[in-house]
């Protein structure tokens, strides 16, 4: 039945009582418990919460602190209901049904209490709705509307209490809007196991704080933005560079290009009322051109380039380890395209950085290529180029600010816009995205393959890598129906797959009969598990690991439309896989522009000298201590 585990369930830090009640093994066979909700009878398995049971009979109990991905909190008390035999009202989100009960979800007592609670939440919620990034997509505002709040019964704060924290390149915290639902805390601690945010102080002085209340830039935040996606109000938002981008667009001397990542295309429609999982790639191209960008390019192109570089790097590492018996080579190799994950490993496992592929992420490769090869081909001074990216990600903002990302001689990527921010720009122009005609990407950096496209979902980089690496080594297409490498797909937090290699070509004979062992993890809580296995020496026989910082991979990124849920992420993944199957070219090494760039520009091939200069990078041993050393 739907006793589905929330994504954060398996993490070690949530107290047992805050996890979903497990259905007792012995009870599993039983037919369930009959409960009555607002006079409707329904049978549910033991441990089902009242909230879930009500959902099944189409009763929507209002919630605020509850989130499908997270462990129970039961702190906002908005979802309270009346349960017979109970003296007090019960939070339906955290009440596991263990005996036949009768529930009232909207009695006058319940409604009066809910209205009072909403009034209390509004009391210290400072700021005007119309100037808020979350206006019309705010759960508190919606609740106030549903419960007919027209005035502040218990007063309303008229001055800010806290300073906004705008220190981070990615996340802005405005604690005046915080309603202390602690979704961000549960996200940061339970879901991601980063542990930057925690409730500090007590009573009315309670505040969500970083370690010692330091600015976000000075703590070990990985910029994943998962907290933003789960914040019910505008207390957390991404740092929006739209103003700077507008200025560049309006400057006639600037040539403004944008690269668009695969997963925003499968999600931006949600901002315009389309159901989750509606891919709008070609309409989005039209919208972007109408907004005023000079060129719209495809990040899938550099995703393909990443596969060439990272795949070659893997084969070279394998050769060094197996043929040259070089003990200094680190295997398994781990992907490096998720900037949240990269910062995570830099903070938490700084001694394991040698496992990370030195290949830059597709965003940064694109930036480097635009201001070199593209500038040269178009006879343009790179200084004139403003390189923008559309990303599903808040950590990409931090990534393009990393000081080492200037191999083109300039800042490789100038601005990273999130899906939400570009949607804002499109809306500001009054462009009706869902009803636009289609248009293609611009040349020459507008050709990407299906392999580049599936980068948007967890397991995608692995799938793209296998499609190419297998073929390079054996000369044959990977033996999966319709190129669907099913073992690497799915939503399980950690997945493993084995690909046997048969009939290797002469130059790869050392791989003959070998089995490529790969692992995929998404969400940094799972990354932590994988790294702990790696540190314990349990992954010595693995070759390649894909890790994405966000649950679901990029499509669940911190810059994607709000809300997020397992269903929404699965719908986005389906859209991406469907789009992949509709494309003519679905293997990175078959991308004609990739072939061309190696022929014309990166002439010493993947992992060659120029590639190393432009497309590869190095990492920083950050550790957990930030601040003045010594």
């Amino acid at each position, binding site marked *: 039945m739907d006793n589905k585990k929330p994504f954060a369930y398996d993490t070690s830090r949530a*107290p047992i*009582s805050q996890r979903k009640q497990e259905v007792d093994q012995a009870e599993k066979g039983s037919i369930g418990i009959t409960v009555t909700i607002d006079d409707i009878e329904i049978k549910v398995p033991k441990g089902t919460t009242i909230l879930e049971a009500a959902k099944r009979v189409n009763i929507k109990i209002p919630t605020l602190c509850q989130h499908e991905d997270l462990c129970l909190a039961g702190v906002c008390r908005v979802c309270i209901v009346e349960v017979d035999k109970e003296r007090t009202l019960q939070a339906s989100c955290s009440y596991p049904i263990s005996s036949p009960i009768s529930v009232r979800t909207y009695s006058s007592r319940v409604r009066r209490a809910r209205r009072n609670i909403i009034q209390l939440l509004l009391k210290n919620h400072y700021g005007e709705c119309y100037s808020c990034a979350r206006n019309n997509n705010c759960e508190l*505002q919606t609740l106030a509307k549903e419960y007919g709040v027209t005035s502040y019964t218990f007063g309303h704060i008229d001055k800010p209490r806290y300073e906004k924290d705008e220190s981070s390149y990615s996340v802005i915290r405005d604690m005046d809007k915080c309603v202390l639902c602690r979704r961000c805390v549960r996200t940061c601690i339970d879901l991601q196991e980063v542990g930057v945010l925690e409730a500090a102080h007590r009573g009315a002085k309670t505040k969500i704080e970083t370690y010692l209340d330091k600015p976000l830039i000075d703590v070990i935040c990985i910029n994943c933005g998962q907290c933003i996606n789960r914040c019910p109000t505008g207390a957390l938002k991404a740092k929006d560079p739209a103003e700077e981008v507008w200025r560049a667009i309006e400057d006639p001397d600037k040539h403004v290009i944008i690269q668009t990542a695969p997963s925003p295309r499968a999600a931006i429609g949600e901002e315009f009322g389309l159901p989750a999982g509606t891919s709008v790639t070609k309409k989005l191209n039209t919208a972007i051109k109408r907004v005023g960008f000079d060129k719209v390019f495809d990040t899938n192109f550099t995703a393909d380039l990443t596969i060439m570089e990272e795949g070659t790097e893997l084969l070279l590492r394998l050769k060094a380890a197996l043929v040259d018996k070089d003990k200094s080579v680190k295997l398994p190799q781990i992907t490096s395209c998720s900037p949240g994950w990269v910062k995570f490993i830099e903070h938490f496992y700084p001694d394991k950085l040698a496992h990370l592929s030195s290949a830059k992420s597709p965003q940064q490769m694109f930036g480097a290529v635009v201001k070199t090869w593209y500038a040269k081909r178009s006879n343009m001074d790179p200084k004139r180029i403003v390189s923008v990216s559309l990303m599903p990600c808040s950590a990409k903002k931090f990534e393009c600010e990393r000081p080492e990302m200037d191999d083109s001689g300039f800042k490789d990527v100038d601005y990273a816009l999130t899906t939400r921010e570009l949607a804002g720009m499109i809306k500001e122009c009054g462009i009706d995205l869902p009803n636009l005609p289609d248009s293609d990407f611009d040349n020459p950096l507008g050709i990407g393959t299906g392999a580049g496209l599936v980068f948007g979902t967890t397991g995608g980089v692995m799938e793209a890598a296998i499609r190419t690496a297998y073929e390079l080594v054996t000369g044959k297409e990977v033996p999966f129906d319709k190129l669907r490498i099913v073992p690497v797909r799915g939503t399980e937090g950690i997945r493993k797959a084995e690909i046997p290699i048969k009939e290797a070509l002469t130059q790869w004979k050392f791989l003959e009969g070998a089995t490529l062992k790969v692992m995929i993890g998404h969400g940094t809580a799972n990354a932590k598990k994988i790294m702990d296995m790696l540190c314990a020496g349990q992954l010595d026989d693995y070759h390649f690991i894909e890790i994405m910082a966000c649950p679901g991979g990029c499509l669940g990124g911190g810059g994607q439309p709000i809300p997020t849920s397992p269903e929404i992420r699965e719908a986005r993944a389906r859209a991406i896989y469907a789009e992949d199957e509709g494309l003519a070219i679905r293997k990175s090494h078959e991308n004609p522009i990739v072939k061309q760039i190696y022929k014309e520009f990166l002439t010493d091939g993947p992992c060659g000298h120029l590639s190393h200069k432009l497309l590869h990078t190095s990492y920083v041993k950050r550790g957990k201590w930030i601040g003045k050393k010594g």
Partner: protein
Amino acid sequence: MQTKREGLVIFSDIGNCAGLKKAANLSSSDILNEIRSSNLKGRGGAGFPTGLKWNFVVEDRSDIKYVVCNADEGEPGTFKDKVLLMEYPQLVFEGMIIAAFTSGAKEGFLYLRGEYKSFVPSLEKILKEMRKKRFLGKDILGKEGFHFDIEIKLGSGAYVCGEETGLIESLEGNRGEPRNKPPFPVNTGYNGCPTVLNNVETFAIIPHIIAKGADWFKGIGTEKSAGTKLISISGDCKRPGVYEVEFGTKIKDILKIAKAQDVKAVSAGASGECVPKAQFSRRLGFEDFSTGGSIIVFGKKRDMFEVTENALRFFEDESCGQCTPCREGIPVLLEGIELIKKGECPKDYLKDLLSLSETMQLTSKCGLGQSSPNLFVSVINNFKKEYTLSKIPKEEKAFNG
């Protein structure tokens, strides 16, 4: 500073570990039956039947179980556990050992209020002696395979850690915040395992019941409140202190013991009910005037709104801050008291405040939040002559959403 205490149960003589020694010859189910038929209810304040609580733990199939004694005595005006821990600590430990034998727990904790840190050496000394006498350790009471020991853990001064699930969180090393209930500690307690968690006084009564029998115990007190209650009396009286009083005793008789004169009201701590003089014939008991141990006496010169404000300030500080009604509601009531004291509280708004109080009582996550407006509500209802309301209707700012 040991003084002679007198009383029917706790302060009555029990002799050399009589309860524990008798328990050694009984089976787990015999003990459970004895406790159940004694009608003993938890002394911490909530009054949950102890036998029923133990039964839940006994019936749970978990291999690991715990016994925890709540010695985080923090309710304003309560200091009766302090007396027990200073003068009769062995009685408390005996109760815990009996609970462990009944439930099958192997580990126990005494969660001691941080401010009682100075008791630790003497408590440790007694534990050491008990280990020597093989009342603690391995094969206790000559029962093969019955291993149990007690560890003392100190709290850090948070009132809310006296709430059973807040206590468990603190014991586990987390921020002291109450959990969602259900599941209750009897099934999901310390480290997620079934846990017998009782107040100091409850554990101290257990050896008496075992030694003297459930019928003897039931013979004391009232039908619904068996036995006696330790009460700590403070405030405007000549003989404040800790007394053992039979359930069913009238408030006015309790006041006589404490030599209190010209009393306007008494309250059961900061979280309990506030009873005005007119109701002093009410009786001590779970069914009538219930207290976890605190009785604070207010003389005729006391301003009841000062008293309420004082209590609410205490709760404002001690609220853990996780749930909305408690965290946000208490400051609203405090603002309301300011208005009432100035005579500026509109009639309509007082209704809003009482509605809010009801919401806090019904929807707060734990007992702290649920009981925080009790004093406010009693004072508003019982002391109408002490305040006047404003006739000017309240202005409300429009919601800008």
